């Protein structure tokens, strides 16, 4: 097994819990999107938003914004509020990603979502080339999982009679679970964990 194969397998194994998580959560987000957005082709919109933004919080919220027809400026402010934590993730990766080519770095930045970041920050590969390869493969896999989940969910939501009364609680549940983890980390003095 070559080094490249080894890194690919390592990234793939690390991504398996996220395959479950993004598959299920992406599906739920797609259902919510198709129920709230009122757009003509929810699966197309949901997939495009999912692959380009890679954000669960946004995916759950943006359908509601489209359905209510809020202004673009308001959407930008709301997106800033619900996504604020993403602005903190890069700090711990500046040094580890130093020297990476610009196109690849732009791609890696796209992938700085909660779960992807947690795996990248806690990865212990020392060799920089191996580490960057690991991050790139992980990001590509996770984007594809999220894309599939959000597209299939929106398609199912718009064609099958999936009950969705009360499903908006999933947003609150997502925030509550993130907050619970963060408070637990603060209370226990932190330390790098391979989070959720």
């Amino acid at each position, binding site marked *: 097994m070559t080094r490249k194969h080894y890194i690919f397998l390592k990234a793939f194994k690390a991504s398996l819990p996220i395959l479950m998580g993004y598959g299920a959560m992406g599906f739920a987000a797609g259902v919510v999107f198709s129920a709230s957005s009122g757009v003509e082709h929810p699966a197309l919109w949901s997939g495009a938003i999912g692959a380009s933004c890679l954000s669960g919080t946004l995916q759950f919220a943006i359908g509601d914004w489209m359905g209510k027809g809020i202004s673009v400026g308001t959407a930008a402010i709301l997106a800033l509020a619900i996504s604020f934590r993403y602005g903190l993730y890069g700090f711990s990766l500046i040094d580890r990603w130093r020297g990476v080519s610009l196109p690849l770095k732009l791609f890696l930045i796209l992938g700085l979502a909660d779960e992807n970041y947690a795996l990248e920050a806690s990865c212990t590969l020392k060799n920089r080339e191996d580490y960057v390869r690991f991050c790139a493969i992980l990001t590509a896999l996770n984007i594809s999982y999220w894309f599939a989940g959000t597209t299939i969910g929106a398609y199912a939501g718009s064609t099958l009679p999936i009950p969705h009364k009360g499903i908006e609680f*999933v947003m609150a549940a997502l925030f509550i679970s993130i907050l619970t983890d963060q408070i637990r980390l603060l209370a226990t003095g932190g330390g790098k964990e391979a989070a959720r």
Partner: protein
Amino acid sequence: MWHNLGIFAASWAVIYLLRAFPFIAFGRCGGDRPWLRAAEKWLSPIVIAILVVYSFASLEWRTPLPYAAGATVVVLQLATRNGLLSIFAGTALYMLLV
């Protein structure tokens, strides 16, 4: 259609620029500073706490239902550290009750 594209584009740009911010602002001098560590530690939980309150506004927050479901999420999250499990169990409970 065009309005929705505008919402999409604005949200995308905000999220991408947020993720790129540390690299743009501190890419040359490195990000390992004490005040950044402190910001990373405290800012994010505070913002998320605000979001919990914000997300309750679109629920039946005058009834005990979202609080019961929310407590379920906290307990499960503390017990299992499995975000997926606690989120889905809490949401399923709320959907059953509401």
